[in-house]
């Protein structure tokens, strides 16, 4: 029933798109078939796979770095009042700096390199992860901590059996919201200073010929890839960490 409703809503959306395209009759609002034709052509040329692959790799690397650092930072902030007081303001500043500003500054200060691109995405995403995980580290059950002390748990046992299971739901939430954030920022970063990737391609077709079919085509393909990762990987991970409930 749920799947049926989903498909119906998708069909209505595509039909509305088709109707609007017919009505407009303009190159600036291409019909669904025109977009599909572009996707097929671009795939046959090999550009699509290359650009999507490059972007995906950037998302994966920056997402991985931001998650690892963000979780470590979040735990430190949640467990230590001193760390929280010291780092709360810088975190707030970073959290409220526009992604565009961070990206431009990274390119200016580090240079137009891959490292600068990754750094820009990491800096954009890290504060969100840290803030979500901090919430988890603040909400650790004090009764379980006391039990762990009464039973003299060694550090490894404490981390594996007491700390990590309590953080898992927060980490999964952070990665789900973080993944969509990361890929949106990667596109901006690519647009501003990379010679390949989905963001570059979209910018290219925009500046070159205002080819809207290309712009929509690229974003649809990449959106599909990211939703696929969320459904196939992250949602399953979430179900797995909540299995004991």
């Amino acid at each position: 029933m749920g799947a049926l409703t989903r498909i119906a809503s998708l069909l209505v959306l595509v039909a509305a798109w088709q109707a609007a395209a017919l009505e407009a009759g303009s190159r600036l609002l291409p019909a669904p078939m025109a977009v599909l034709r572009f996707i097929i052509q671009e795939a046959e040329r090999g550009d699509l796979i290359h650009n999507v692959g490059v972007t995906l790799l950037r998302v994966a690397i920056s997402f991985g770095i931001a998650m690892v650092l963000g979780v470590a930072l979040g735990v430190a902030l949640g467990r230590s009042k001193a760390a929280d007081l010291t780092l709360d303001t810088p975190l707030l500043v970073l959290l409220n700096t526009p992604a565009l500003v961070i990206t431009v500054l990274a390119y200016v200060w580090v240079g137009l390199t891959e490292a600068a691109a990754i750094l820009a995405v990491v800096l954009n995403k890290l504060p969100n992860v840290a803030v979500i995980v901090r919430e988890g580290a603040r909400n650790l059950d004090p009764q379980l901590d006391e039990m762990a002390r009464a039973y003299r748990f060694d550090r490894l046992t404490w981390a594996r059996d007491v700390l990590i299971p309590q953080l898992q739901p927060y980490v999964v939430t952070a990665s789900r919201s973080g993944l969509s954030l990361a890929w949106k920022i990667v596109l901006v970063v690519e647009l501003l200073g990379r010679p390949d990737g989905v963001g570059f391609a979209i910018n290219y077709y925009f500046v070159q010929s205002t080819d809207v079919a290309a712009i929509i085509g690229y974003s649809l393909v990449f959106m599909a890839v990211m939703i696929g990762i969320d459904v196939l990987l992250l949602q399953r991970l979430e179900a797995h960490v909540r299995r004991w409930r």
Partner: protein
Amino acid sequence: MSAAGADPVLRVSIDSKWYRSRGAEPVEAVRDLAFGVEAGEIVCLIGPSGAGKTTSLRILLGLDTDYTGQVSGAEQAGMVFQEPRLLPWRSVEHNIRLGLPRARRGRDLDGLFGRLGLAPWRASYPKALSLGMQRRVALARALADDPRVLVLDEPFVSLDDAAAAELRGLVVDTVDGAGMSVLMVTHNVAEAIGIADRLLLLSRRPASLVADVPLDRERGARDRAWAEATRATLAALYPEIIAV
């Protein structure tokens, strides 16, 4: 019986314990509380609620170090908290094995699972179990490393009578069989009279020792009449602590 064994298994000597929180008057929770638990002895700590019994246990276990005085013996104690305090994301068996230091965590516990009737539940998660069964798991965790003394904080509270009696029986059988000592905090006087070798009566806040009452009759020979007579005697002597 209090004069048995030379070295007590547990020794508690708390000169004073204050709770100081910002914006509130400091409260003295414990003052001059000293007692020991001998090998093989079941000792019940009885006092009005909020008297500082749990505070004393926390100090004894090293969970609260902000006090003046001295305690010893916690390293050979297995602890059962008032709430089971199991890890809900770990199986029953995993929870019980966490009662062992890492080096011994793989040891054979079939006997323990069998004795406590937990064998069918080894792979279950704690949330699938009733409160009584969860308490059993907590008891098994405390027993896993063969402690010399079992420390219990109101372990039978909020169970129905049958479940409480069953769990109580398990505790008594286990410690009698192994020559283990027990220090149990309770506010259930009947329960304490039923199983203790010695009762320690605590005053209201700040908690201090009011009386140290040995119960000499064999546990098996304690009948209803004896229990009621004992309770009446204690109630007459210490009306502040024990109601009729």
